[in-house]
Protein backbone atom coordinates (compact mmCIF):
# COMPACT_ATOMS: atom_id res chain seq x y z
CA UNK A 1 0.00 0.00 0.00
CA UNK A 2 1.38 3.38 -0.89
CA UNK A 3 2.21 5.05 2.41
CA UNK A 4 2.68 8.48 0.97
CA UNK A 5 -0.81 8.71 -0.45
CA UNK A 6 -1.99 11.02 2.31
CA UNK A 7 1.21 12.87 3.07
CA UNK A 8 2.00 16.27 1.55
CA UNK A 9 5.40 17.15 0.27
CA UNK A 10 7.27 15.87 3.29
CA UNK A 11 8.72 12.83 1.61
CA UNK A 12 10.32 14.50 -1.41
CA UNK A 13 13.86 13.38 -2.19
CA UNK A 14 16.40 16.21 -2.19
CA UNK A 15 18.28 17.72 -5.12
CA UNK A 16 21.31 15.39 -5.03
CA UNK A 17 19.16 12.33 -5.20
CA UNK A 18 17.34 13.94 -8.14
CA UNK A 19 20.68 14.03 -9.94
CA UNK A 20 21.42 10.40 -9.18
CA UNK A 21 17.98 9.52 -10.37
CA UNK A 22 18.63 11.23 -13.68
CA UNK A 23 21.80 9.16 -13.97
CA UNK A 24 20.03 5.91 -13.35
CA UNK A 25 17.27 6.97 -15.77
CA UNK A 26 19.92 7.39 -18.46
CA UNK A 27 21.20 3.86 -17.88
CA UNK A 28 17.75 2.45 -18.22
CA UNK A 29 16.86 4.60 -21.19
CA UNK A 30 17.77 1.98 -23.75
CA UNK A 31 15.60 -0.66 -22.18
CA UNK A 32 12.76 1.77 -21.61
CA UNK A 33 12.83 2.93 -25.23
CA UNK A 34 12.82 -0.66 -26.42
CA UNK A 35 9.90 -1.48 -24.14
CA UNK A 36 7.97 1.53 -25.40
CA UNK A 37 8.49 0.59 -29.03
CA UNK A 38 7.18 -2.90 -28.33
CA UNK A 39 3.77 -1.48 -27.62
CA UNK A 40 2.61 0.33 -30.69
CA UNK A 41 -1.10 0.17 -31.39
CA UNK A 42 -1.87 -1.21 -34.83
CA UNK A 43 -4.32 0.77 -36.97
CA UNK A 44 -6.65 -2.27 -36.97
CA UNK A 45 -6.65 -2.23 -33.17
CA UNK A 46 -7.66 1.38 -32.93
CA UNK A 47 -10.24 0.99 -35.72
CA UNK A 48 -11.88 -1.93 -33.93
CA UNK A 49 -12.04 -0.16 -30.59
CA UNK A 50 -13.30 2.99 -32.27
CA UNK A 51 -16.18 1.16 -33.96
CA UNK A 52 -17.26 -0.51 -30.73
CA UNK A 53 -17.14 2.77 -28.84
CA UNK A 54 -19.22 4.62 -31.43
CA UNK A 55 -21.82 1.86 -31.57
CA UNK A 56 -22.23 1.93 -27.79
CA UNK A 57 -22.44 5.69 -27.86
CA UNK A 58 -25.05 5.64 -30.62
CA UNK A 59 -27.16 3.16 -28.64
CA UNK A 60 -26.89 5.43 -25.62
CA UNK A 61 -27.95 8.40 -27.73
CA UNK A 62 -31.11 6.62 -28.90
CA UNK A 63 -32.14 6.31 -25.27
CA UNK A 64 -31.40 9.98 -24.57
CA UNK A 65 -33.80 12.81 -23.75
CA UNK A 66 -36.57 13.97 -26.10
CA UNK A 67 -38.14 17.29 -27.00
CA UNK A 68 -41.92 17.49 -27.42
CA UNK A 69 -43.10 19.44 -30.42
CA UNK A 70 -46.12 19.74 -32.62
CA UNK A 71 -46.57 20.10 -36.37
CA UNK A 72 -48.44 23.03 -37.82
CA UNK A 73 -51.28 20.57 -38.53
CA UNK A 74 -51.47 19.92 -34.81
CA UNK A 75 -49.87 16.47 -34.67
CA UNK A 76 -47.80 16.07 -31.50
CA UNK A 77 -44.55 14.12 -31.56
CA UNK A 78 -41.36 13.83 -29.61
CA UNK A 79 -37.94 13.89 -31.17
CA UNK A 80 -34.56 13.05 -29.69
CA UNK A 81 -33.16 16.29 -28.31
CA UNK A 82 -29.81 15.43 -29.88
CA UNK A 83 -31.42 15.46 -33.35
CA UNK A 84 -32.96 18.87 -32.80
CA UNK A 85 -29.71 20.34 -31.50
CA UNK A 86 -27.92 18.89 -34.50
CA UNK A 87 -30.19 20.80 -36.87
CA UNK A 88 -29.46 24.07 -35.09
CA UNK A 89 -25.73 23.34 -34.83
CA UNK A 90 -25.42 22.77 -38.56
CA UNK A 91 -27.15 26.08 -39.25
CA UNK A 92 -24.79 27.91 -36.90
CA UNK A 93 -21.62 26.23 -38.21
CA UNK A 94 -22.64 27.23 -41.74
CA UNK A 95 -22.03 30.87 -40.84
CA UNK A 96 -18.46 31.88 -41.66
CA UNK A 97 -16.29 32.46 -38.62
CA UNK A 98 -18.69 30.86 -36.17
CA UNK A 99 -18.63 27.56 -34.32
CA UNK A 100 -21.69 26.43 -32.39
CA UNK A 101 -21.05 25.41 -28.83
CA UNK A 102 -23.99 24.89 -26.50
CA UNK A 103 -27.45 24.59 -28.09
CA UNK A 104 -30.73 24.54 -26.23
CA UNK A 105 -34.12 24.14 -27.94
CA UNK A 106 -37.30 24.43 -25.91
CA UNK A 107 -40.89 23.98 -27.02
CA UNK A 108 -42.67 27.32 -27.26
CA UNK A 109 -45.69 28.90 -28.86
CA UNK A 110 -49.35 28.23 -28.38
CA UNK A 111 -50.11 25.37 -28.36
CA UNK A 112 -46.81 24.61 -26.73
CA UNK A 113 -44.42 22.89 -29.09
CA UNK A 114 -45.74 24.55 -32.22
CA UNK A 115 -42.70 26.81 -32.20
CA UNK A 116 -39.16 26.48 -30.92
CA UNK A 117 -37.20 28.71 -28.59
CA UNK A 118 -33.49 28.50 -29.31
CA UNK A 119 -30.60 29.64 -27.10
CA UNK A 120 -27.08 29.09 -28.15
CA UNK A 121 -23.50 29.95 -27.36
CA UNK A 122 -20.83 30.27 -30.00
CA UNK A 123 -17.12 30.70 -30.45
CA UNK A 124 -16.19 33.32 -33.04
CA UNK A 125 -13.12 33.75 -35.14
CA UNK A 126 -10.91 36.61 -34.04
CA UNK A 127 -11.57 39.79 -35.97
CA UNK A 128 -15.14 39.25 -37.15
CA UNK A 129 -17.78 41.77 -36.25
CA UNK A 130 -20.35 40.33 -33.91
CA UNK A 131 -23.51 42.29 -34.68
CA UNK A 132 -23.86 41.50 -38.40
CA UNK A 133 -22.66 37.96 -37.78
CA UNK A 134 -25.33 37.43 -35.15
CA UNK A 135 -27.85 38.55 -37.79
CA UNK A 136 -26.50 35.94 -40.14
CA UNK A 137 -26.73 33.28 -37.43
CA UNK A 138 -30.34 34.13 -36.69
CA UNK A 139 -31.25 34.00 -40.39
CA UNK A 140 -29.46 30.69 -40.84
CA UNK A 141 -30.98 29.05 -37.77
CA UNK A 142 -34.45 30.33 -38.52
CA UNK A 143 -34.35 29.04 -42.09
CA UNK A 144 -32.80 25.68 -41.16
CA UNK A 145 -35.17 24.95 -38.30
CA UNK A 146 -38.14 25.67 -40.55
CA UNK A 147 -36.75 23.65 -43.46
CA UNK A 148 -35.45 20.64 -41.51
CA UNK A 149 -37.78 20.49 -38.57
CA UNK A 150 -40.81 22.10 -40.19
CA UNK A 151 -41.39 24.23 -37.13
CA UNK A 152 -40.74 27.98 -36.81
CA UNK A 153 -38.15 29.37 -34.42
CA UNK A 154 -39.92 31.87 -32.18
CA UNK A 155 -36.85 33.25 -30.52
CA UNK A 156 -33.11 32.89 -30.96
CA UNK A 157 -30.76 33.98 -28.18
CA UNK A 158 -27.07 34.10 -29.06
CA UNK A 159 -24.17 34.45 -26.67
CA UNK A 160 -20.57 34.69 -27.88
CA UNK A 161 -18.43 33.09 -25.20
CA UNK A 162 -15.05 32.59 -26.80
CA UNK A 163 -12.76 33.59 -29.59
CA UNK A 164 -10.61 31.36 -31.77
CA UNK A 165 -7.79 31.99 -34.18
CA UNK A 166 -7.57 30.12 -37.49
Amino acid at each position, binding site marked *: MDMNEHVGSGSEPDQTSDDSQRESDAQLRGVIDEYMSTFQPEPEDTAGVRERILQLVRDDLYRGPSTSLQTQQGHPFSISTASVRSIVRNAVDAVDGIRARSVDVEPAGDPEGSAAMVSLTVAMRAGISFAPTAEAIRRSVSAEVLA*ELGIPAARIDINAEDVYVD
Partner: protein
Amino acid sequence: MYSGNGSVNGSNSGKEVVESARLADSVTSIAGVRALAPGLRDLVATATAKVLRRTGDEPVGVDVTRGGDGVKVRIDAHLDHTRAVAEVVDEIFSVVEADIARGAVEVSGRLDIDLRVVSRG
Protein backbone atom coordinates in the same frame (compact mmCIF):
# COMPACT_ATOMS: atom_id res chain seq x y z
CA MET B 1 -52.62 -16.23 -38.83
CA TYR B 2 -52.58 -16.35 -35.09
CA SER B 3 -56.10 -15.99 -33.72
CA GLY B 4 -55.70 -16.32 -29.98
CA ASN B 5 -56.89 -13.68 -27.56
CA GLY B 6 -55.52 -12.24 -24.34
CA SER B 7 -51.94 -11.52 -23.36
CA VAL B 8 -49.52 -14.36 -23.02
CA ASN B 9 -46.26 -13.14 -21.58
CA GLY B 10 -46.21 -9.40 -22.16
CA SER B 11 -48.41 -6.50 -22.89
CA ASN B 12 -49.76 -7.48 -26.32
CA SER B 13 -52.08 -10.14 -27.58
CA GLY B 14 -51.64 -11.90 -30.91
CA LYS B 15 -54.12 -9.52 -32.55
CA GLU B 16 -52.14 -6.49 -31.51
CA VAL B 17 -48.91 -8.02 -32.76
CA VAL B 18 -50.49 -8.52 -36.17
CA GLU B 19 -51.91 -4.98 -36.16
CA SER B 20 -48.49 -3.63 -35.22
CA ALA B 21 -46.99 -5.47 -38.15
CA ARG B 22 -49.54 -4.04 -40.59
CA LEU B 23 -48.96 -0.49 -39.44
CA ALA B 24 -45.21 -1.03 -39.52
CA ASP B 25 -45.42 -2.01 -43.18
CA SER B 26 -47.33 1.17 -44.01
CA VAL B 27 -45.11 3.47 -41.98
CA THR B 28 -41.82 2.13 -43.30
CA SER B 29 -42.97 2.77 -46.85
CA ILE B 30 -43.34 6.51 -46.19
CA ALA B 31 -40.66 8.63 -47.87
CA GLY B 32 -38.35 10.03 -45.20
CA VAL B 33 -38.69 7.08 -42.85
CA ARG B 34 -35.35 5.32 -42.84
CA ALA B 35 -36.23 2.54 -40.45
CA LEU B 36 -38.20 1.67 -37.40
CA ALA B 37 -36.53 0.86 -34.13
CA PRO B 38 -34.53 -2.36 -34.16
CA GLY B 39 -36.28 -5.57 -33.40
CA LEU B 40 -39.36 -4.99 -35.51
CA ARG B 41 -38.06 -6.87 -38.56
CA ASP B 42 -37.71 -10.02 -36.49
CA LEU B 43 -41.12 -9.53 -35.02
CA VAL B 44 -42.77 -9.08 -38.41
CA ALA B 45 -41.01 -12.08 -39.86
CA THR B 46 -41.96 -14.47 -37.12
CA ALA B 47 -44.96 -12.81 -35.59
CA THR B 48 -46.74 -16.03 -34.86
CA ALA B 49 -43.84 -17.77 -33.21
CA LYS B 50 -42.84 -14.72 -31.29
CA VAL B 51 -46.20 -14.07 -29.71
CA LEU B 52 -45.70 -16.83 -27.21
CA ARG B 53 -42.25 -15.66 -26.12
CA ARG B 54 -42.83 -11.94 -26.27
CA THR B 55 -41.90 -9.83 -23.26
CA GLY B 56 -43.02 -6.27 -22.72
CA ASP B 57 -39.58 -4.79 -22.96
CA GLU B 58 -38.57 -5.73 -26.50
CA PRO B 59 -38.04 -2.61 -28.56
CA VAL B 60 -40.65 -2.45 -31.30
CA GLY B 61 -41.00 -0.02 -34.17
CA VAL B 62 -44.78 0.00 -33.94
CA ASP B 63 -46.57 -1.07 -30.84
CA VAL B 64 -50.33 -1.32 -30.61
CA THR B 65 -51.72 -1.66 -27.11
CA ARG B 66 -55.17 -1.49 -25.69
CA GLY B 67 -55.82 0.25 -22.39
CA GLY B 68 -58.94 1.03 -20.45
CA ASP B 69 -60.22 3.85 -22.60
CA GLY B 70 -58.92 3.13 -26.07
CA VAL B 71 -56.03 2.20 -28.29
CA LYS B 72 -52.48 3.48 -28.18
CA VAL B 73 -50.20 3.25 -31.16
CA ARG B 74 -46.54 3.82 -30.29
CA ILE B 75 -44.08 4.40 -33.08
CA ASP B 76 -40.30 4.78 -32.76
CA ALA B 77 -38.92 5.93 -36.09
CA HIS B 78 -35.52 6.70 -37.55
CA LEU B 79 -35.82 9.40 -40.20
CA ASP B 80 -33.46 10.50 -42.94
CA HIS B 81 -32.64 14.00 -44.14
CA THR B 82 -34.80 14.01 -47.26
CA ARG B 83 -37.85 15.73 -45.80
CA ALA B 84 -38.71 18.10 -42.98
CA VAL B 85 -39.50 16.22 -39.78
CA ALA B 86 -42.96 17.77 -39.41
CA GLU B 87 -43.87 16.74 -42.94
CA VAL B 88 -43.00 13.10 -42.26
CA VAL B 89 -44.81 13.24 -38.94
CA ASP B 90 -47.96 14.53 -40.62
CA GLU B 91 -47.78 11.76 -43.18
CA ILE B 92 -47.26 9.08 -40.53
CA PHE B 93 -50.37 10.29 -38.76
CA SER B 94 -52.43 10.31 -41.95
CA VAL B 95 -51.20 6.84 -42.96
CA VAL B 96 -52.02 5.36 -39.57
CA GLU B 97 -55.41 7.03 -39.53
CA ALA B 98 -56.12 5.72 -43.03
CA ASP B 99 -55.13 2.18 -41.99
CA ILE B 100 -57.44 2.43 -39.03
CA ALA B 101 -60.28 3.66 -41.21
CA ARG B 102 -59.69 0.60 -43.44
CA GLY B 103 -59.89 -1.73 -40.44
CA ALA B 104 -56.22 -2.67 -40.16
CA VAL B 105 -56.51 -1.76 -36.50
CA GLU B 106 -59.70 -2.11 -34.53
CA VAL B 107 -60.31 1.05 -32.58
CA SER B 108 -63.02 1.58 -30.04
CA GLY B 109 -62.69 4.55 -27.74
CA ARG B 110 -59.79 6.96 -27.92
CA LEU B 111 -56.95 6.69 -30.37
CA ASP B 112 -53.61 7.92 -29.11
CA ILE B 113 -50.68 8.04 -31.51
CA ASP B 114 -47.40 8.38 -29.63
CA LEU B 115 -44.68 9.08 -32.14
CA ARG B 116 -41.00 9.40 -31.29
CA VAL B 117 -38.34 10.34 -33.78
CA VAL B 118 -35.37 8.41 -32.40
CA SER B 119 -32.79 9.71 -34.82
CA ARG B 120 -32.37 11.66 -38.00
CA GLY B 121 -29.48 10.77 -40.21
